[in-house]
C-alpha cells in the first residue's frame, strides 16, 4: 500500500474550498451590484477611499461656495438696484437744477423745485442706508449699522469703514461683497471733498433763498451734480462687473460639481455591465462545480459492491 492516496477527506475538503471561494466572490459581486458601490470600506481600496474623501471635501466646499456665491449675487444685485435708483434720482436733480438755473423761473417755481429736491435728498439718504436681504447695510463697509447719519443741521456723515470684505466663491477666488459708501456717494469737487448729499442739500438751501442769486447757484451746482453722477455711474460699473463675475463663477461651480460627481462615480461606483458579467461568470463556475461535485461524489465503489 503506497503512502499517498486520493483520500476522500481531501476530495471533500478541496471541493468545499473551491465552492466557498466561488460563493464568496459571487456574494461580493452581488453586494457591489446591490449597493452600487465598489468600495464598501476603506481597505477595499485605500487610495480610492482617500480620493473619495478628498472629493467629498471638495464637494462640501463647492456647495458652500455655491451658497456663498448666491448670497453674494443677491447682495450685489441689491446694491446695483439701489445705485440704479440713485442714478435716476441724480438725473432728476440735474433736470431740476437746469430748470432752476433759468432766470425766467420765479421764486415760487424755485421754492417748488427746492421742495422736490429736498425730497430727492431724503430718498438719496434712504437709498444710501438701504439694507441687504439679511438686514446688513449695503454701503457701510464691514461695519454693521446704518452707513450714513444726519445731524440736526442736516449734515450727512459716513459711519462705516473703507473695507468692503470679500467672500470666497471658488478655490483661491474671493469677490468683494459691495462698495463702501464713500466710493458711491463722495467725490472731490474742485479740490475739496464733497458728496451727493452736500450738493443736493446745498442747492435746495440756495433755491430757498440762501444765496443772493439762486439761478446762478443752480447753474453752478450742475458741475457738482455731474460729478456725483459720474461717481455713481463708475460704482455701478464696478458692481455690474462683479455681478457678471459671480454669474460666470456660478457656471464654473456647476461644471465643477458635475465633474466631481463624475470622478466620484469613476472611483466608487460599480461598473454594472462589467460586474454583472463577472457575476454570471462566477455563478456559472459555481453551478458547474456544484454539479460536478454531486456527480463525482456519487462515484463510489460501494455502489458496486
Amino acid at each position, binding site marked *: *500500500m503506497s*503512502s*499517498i*492516496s*486520493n*483520500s*476522500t*477527506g*481531501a476530495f471533500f*475538503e*478541496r471541493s468545499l*474550498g473551491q465552492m466557498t471561494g466561488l460563493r464568496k466572490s459571487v456574494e461580493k459581486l452581488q453586494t457591489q451590484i446591490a449597493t452600487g458601490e465598489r468600495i464598501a*470600506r*476603506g*481597505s*477595499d*481600496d*485605500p*487610495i480610492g*477611499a*482617500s480620493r473619495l*474623501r*478628498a472629493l*467629498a*471635501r471638495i464637494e*462640501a*466646499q463647492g*456647495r*458652500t*461656495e455655491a*451658497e*456663498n456665491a448666491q*448670497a*453674494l449675487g443677491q447682495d450685489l444685485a441689491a446694491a446695483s438696484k439701489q445705485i440704479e435708483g440713485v442714478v435716476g434720482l441724480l438725473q432728476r436733480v440735474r433736470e431740476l437744477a437746469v430748470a432752476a438755473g433759468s432766470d425766467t423761473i420765479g421764486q415760487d417755481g424755485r421754492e417748488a423745485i427746492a421742495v422736490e429736491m429736498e425730497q430727492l435728498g431724503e430718498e438719496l439718504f434712504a437709498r444710501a442706508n438701504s439694507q441687504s436681504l*439679511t438686514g*446688513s447695510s449695503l454701503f457701510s*463697509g*464691514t*461695519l*454693521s*449699522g446704518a452707513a450714513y447719519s444726519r445731524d440736526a443741521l442736516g449734515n450727512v456723515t459716513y459711519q462705516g469703514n473703507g*473695507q468692503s*470684505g*470679500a*467672500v*470666497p466663491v471658488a478655490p483661491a477666488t474671493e469677490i468683494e*461683497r459691495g462698495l463702501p459708501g464713500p466710493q458711491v456717494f463722495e467725490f472731490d469737487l474742485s479740490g475739496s471733498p464733497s458728496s451727493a448729499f452736500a450738493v443736493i442739500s446745498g442747492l435746495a438751501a440756495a433755491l430757498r433763498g440762501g444765496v443772493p442769486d439762486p439761478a446762478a447757484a443752480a447753474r453752478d451746482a450742475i458741475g457738482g451734480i455731474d460729478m456725483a453722477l459720474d461717481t455713481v455711474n463708475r460704482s455701478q460699473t464696478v458692481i455690474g462687473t462683479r455681478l457678471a463675475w459671480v454669474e460666470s463663477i456660478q457656471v464654473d461651480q456647476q461644471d465643477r460639481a458635475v465633474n466631481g460627481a463624475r470622478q466620484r462615480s469613476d472611483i466608487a461606483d460599480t461598473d454594472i455591465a462589467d460586474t454583472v458579467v463577472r457575476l454570471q461568470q462566477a455563478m456559472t463556475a459555481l453551478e458547474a462545480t456544484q454539479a460536478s461535485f454531486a456527480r463525482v461524489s456519487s462515484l*463510489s*465503489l*460501494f455502489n*458496486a*459492491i
Partner: protein
Amino acid sequence: MMPTNLITIGASGARAARASIELTAQNIANAANPDYARRRLNTGELVGSAVIDFQHSSAFSGTRIGGVQRADSELFQLRVRDSGSDVARATGELTGLKAAETAIEQSQVYEKLVAFEASLTRLESDPTDRALRTATLESARQLAQTFRFADTTLEDTRASLAGELGARVTDVNVAAQELAKINGELVSAREGSGGRAALLDARDAALRDLSDEIGINVQLDEFGTARVTLDGTPALTLVDGTLASTFSAQVNPDNSVTLAVDGVTGTANTGAMAGRISALGRISALQDELDDIATSAITRANTAQAAGAALDGSAGQPLFSGSDAGSIALTMSDGAGLALAPAGSPAGSRDTGNLGNLIAALGADDGPIAATDRALVSLSSRIAGLDTTREGLVIINESAQADLLAATSVDLDSEAANLVRLQKAFEANSRVIQVANDIFDTILGLR
C-alpha cells in the same frame, strides 16, 4: 505434514482477514473525522521450525497478526502547523484592525471635520448672521461628540482585543496540559496497538490546535511524545514530556504585551496570539493619532479664537475645552462668541479676516483634516496589504492540508476495494479448512 496443520493455517488466514476487515470498517467509519489517520493491519508469515535429531524440520503455520500501522507524515504535519500559524497570525491582526477601521470610519471623524470647515466657509458670506453662527456652533458640537464617540469605540475595540488575548491564554495552557497528558500515555502505550494510534491522532490534533493559537516548534522522540517550544526568542519550552509549563500574556499599560512561560519572558513570531499583539499595538498607535488630531483641532480653533473679536467686539474666548479625543467638548454656548473678525474690530463687524485664518488652519496640510485622511489611508493600506498576504497564506495552508489529508486520511474507494479483497481472502481461507477436512475424511476412509 499433517492435515491438522492445514486447518491451523486456514484458521490463521481467516482470522487475519477478519481482523483486517474490522480495521477497514473502522477506517470507513472514521472517513469524515478530520483528526483520524487511516490504519492498516500488518501481517507476517508464521513458520514453526524445530531441530530434532540433527534433522531440520520446519512447519508452515499460516499468518501472524502484527500491529496496527498508522499512516503518518511528519513533513505534512509540520507544513500544516507552520502555515496554520501564519494564517492565524494574519487573521488575528486583520480581525483587530478591521474592527478599528470600522470604529474610525463609522464615527465619521473626517466627515464631521469637513462639515465644520464648510459651515465656517458659509459664514464668510454673512459673518453677522445669527442663524449661520448657531449652525456653525452646532457643527462644532457634533465634531466634539464625534471625536469622543470615535475614542470610545476605539477603546472598546482595544479592550475587547485585550480581553480575547487573556481568554486565549487559557486555551494555550489547556492544550499544553492535554499534550503533556497524551505524552505520558504514549510512553506506556504498546507499539502497534490501536490505543497508541488513537493517542497519536490526539497528539497531532492537539499540536495543530496549539499552533493555531501560537507558533510552535515540535520535536518527537522514539515514543512519539512531543516536546514543544515556542517559535520566538528565546525558544521557551512549553511542554516537555509530561511536564506542561504555564503560559501567560500580560497586557501592559502602554498596550505592549509581555509573554512568559513559567515567568521567563519571550516573544511569539506567529500564531493568532502574535497577530493580536500586533493589532493591539497598532490600535494603541491609532488612539494616539486620534488624540493628536483632536488636540490639533482644539488648539487651532482656540488659537484662532484668541486672535479675533466676537460679534460684540470682545476678545474671542476658547471654542473647545479638553486636551484629547476623549475629553474634547464644546465650551462656547452662543454663536455670537465666534471670533470671526480680527482682534480690535468693533461690535458687529463684518470683517472676516480671522475667520479666514481659522479655515486655513483647519484645512492646512498639517491640520486635523489632512491628518485624519493620512491616518485612514495608512490603516486601510495596512489592512489591504494584510488581506492580500492572508489570501496567499490561506492558499499555502489549504494545499498543505490537502497534502496531509491525501497522505493520511481515508480513501473510501481503496477501502471498498480492500473490503472485497479481504472478503475473498476470508472465503479462500474457509475453503482451505474445508479442503483439510476433505483430506482428513479421505485418510480416515482408507481401509
